[in-house]
């Protein structure tokens, strides 16, 4: 089945390992916890051991900045690094909307990239073609969802595949 699909639509490693992703993996942005964090959350992927800790500074309904820590593969760590840049300066509502779109892109290889402007995050679109790596890409966003929901006074139903929790805030 895979080979049929692949013969019509060849899947190349370049689809996964875009330059932007490798750049963020080698030179992660916003690495480390933030002193001004108002909420912190973490999550991990039990099947592979990737982990992300996220600290988010939220003031007056705006995400002022994010810092991340953790360890894992290039996809999980670059996804987190790109996320910290892309979410900075957004309203809570906008950040949550963006997270939803990115997760759709990560899980659906027919996602329409023209429908929403995801900026550099579009580099992650190739992940959907590598089913076993989707969870790597999703991890940071699940942690973000947990943090932002908590900041909005909501609770996130725990995704048992990728457990996340608020650690402070």
């Amino acid at each position, binding site marked *: 089945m895979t080979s049929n699909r*692949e013969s019509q639509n060849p899947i190349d*490693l370049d689809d*996964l*390992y875009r330059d932007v992703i*490798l750049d963020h*993996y*080698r030179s992660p942005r916003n690495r480390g916890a933030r002193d001004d964090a108002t909420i912190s959350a973490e999550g991990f992927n039990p*099947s*592979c*051991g*990737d*982990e992300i800790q996220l600290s988010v500074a939220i003031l007056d309904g705006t995400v002022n900045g994010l810092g991340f820590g953790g*360890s*894992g*593969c*290039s*996809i999980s760590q670059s996804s987190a690094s790109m996320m910290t840049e892309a979410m900075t300066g957004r309203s809570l509502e906008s950040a949550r909307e963006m997270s939803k779109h990115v997760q759709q892109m990560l899980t659906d290889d027919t996602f329409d990239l023209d429908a929403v402007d995801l900026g550099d995050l579009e580099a992650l679109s190739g992940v959907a073609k*590598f089913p*076993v*790596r989707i969870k*790597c890409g999703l991890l940071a966003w699940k942690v973000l969802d947990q943090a932002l929901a908590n900041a909005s006074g909501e609770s996130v139903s725990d995704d048992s595949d990728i457990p996340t929790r608020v650690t402070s805030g």
Partner: protein
Amino acid sequence: MTAATKGTPLDTAAIRAQFPILAREVHGHPLVYLDNAATTQKPQAVIDALTGYYSTMNANIHRGLHTLAEEATAAYEHVRKQVAEFIGASSHREVVFTRNTTESLNLLAYTLGARLKPGDEIVLTAAEHHSNLVPWQLVTQRTGAVLRFIELNDDQQIDVDTARAAINANTRIVSIVHMSNVLGSIAPVAEIAEMARAVGATMIVDAAQSAPHIPVDVGELGADYLAFSAHKMLGPTGVGVLWGRQELLADLDPFLGGGEMISVVTREESSWAALPHKFEAGTPNIADVIAFGAALDFLNEIGMDAIAAHDAELTEYAVDRLSRLEGLDIYGPADPAERSAVIAFNYRDIHSHDVATILDRSGVAIRAGHHCAQPLMRTLGVPATARASFYLYNERSEIDALVDGLLEAGERFGFER
């Protein structure tokens, strides 16, 4: 493969021809299957035995009075005798079929664990697969018994000295991995069994990785119980073996209750069937057990000594080639002679998942992650490793393909060849 080839390097071309899956391509490249510690591929004889059973003799066993049931029962029980012979058991009654190594170990943890008191000690090693750790953790929660661990020595091996430090007068159970699924090292089971016996403890051996790769003789090991899985030694999934010394198994309470495992049942109570049926409640995995018999025939035909020699030669070649790569760390004993068929490694700080994905695009299948040994990963100080593991059909050219794939992964992450 004739008897004349026993003890000599294997004729891998002839062996490979008997594994249909090895002819397939993955992403346009010949499959290079180096994930044998997870599960092995199956020869045509095993596949034929499986379909042959369903095509010609499918019936429930041990109770039917018709021809099919007689034939199926005989075929199933024949494999029990084959297993007994394969591991040097003194009787086929000592061989219990389970689903896998995990279930065999859970059977022991459940039945032996029920006898423990607070303060009793269960000794494991730092290198256990979760299957020989979590069942015992459950026992400690139920009983107040405590876990102790045989640590790795400086060469990342379990040795007699580290074992001596963990075994004492409070030890009731020693349950250790024979061959590590990460380090590839072989534990000195016989010596550790001697220590267990000296303090009156029960000796359990997890042979999931060793039984496929080296000759395993329960008498020589001095074990009380031994567990392994068919699917890691050319057999089908869904069949595990629990071997136990007859007088010990006879003294154990049943694990699962139901049909097949009883003698007389009244409304209030039951008496148990004779060994080994006391431990095989319900309709067993008849087809897969019978197909496992074909796998044992295949292994016996080649000979476990020859397989061990082949694995050792490939391992030495792989350790040599891999260790020449700049930035490649191999875990486990430094001397290839101290290990078998499993090599866990990390390369140039490239995460093992990325390594595995890139290798897969060249048709090379390896494992990446924690290998169901998270505590060992913490002991080694790494979140995950890549792992290549070999078997009787692997060839040197496949190690070369692994090395080429690693160099390509390095390039992709910005390292020069």
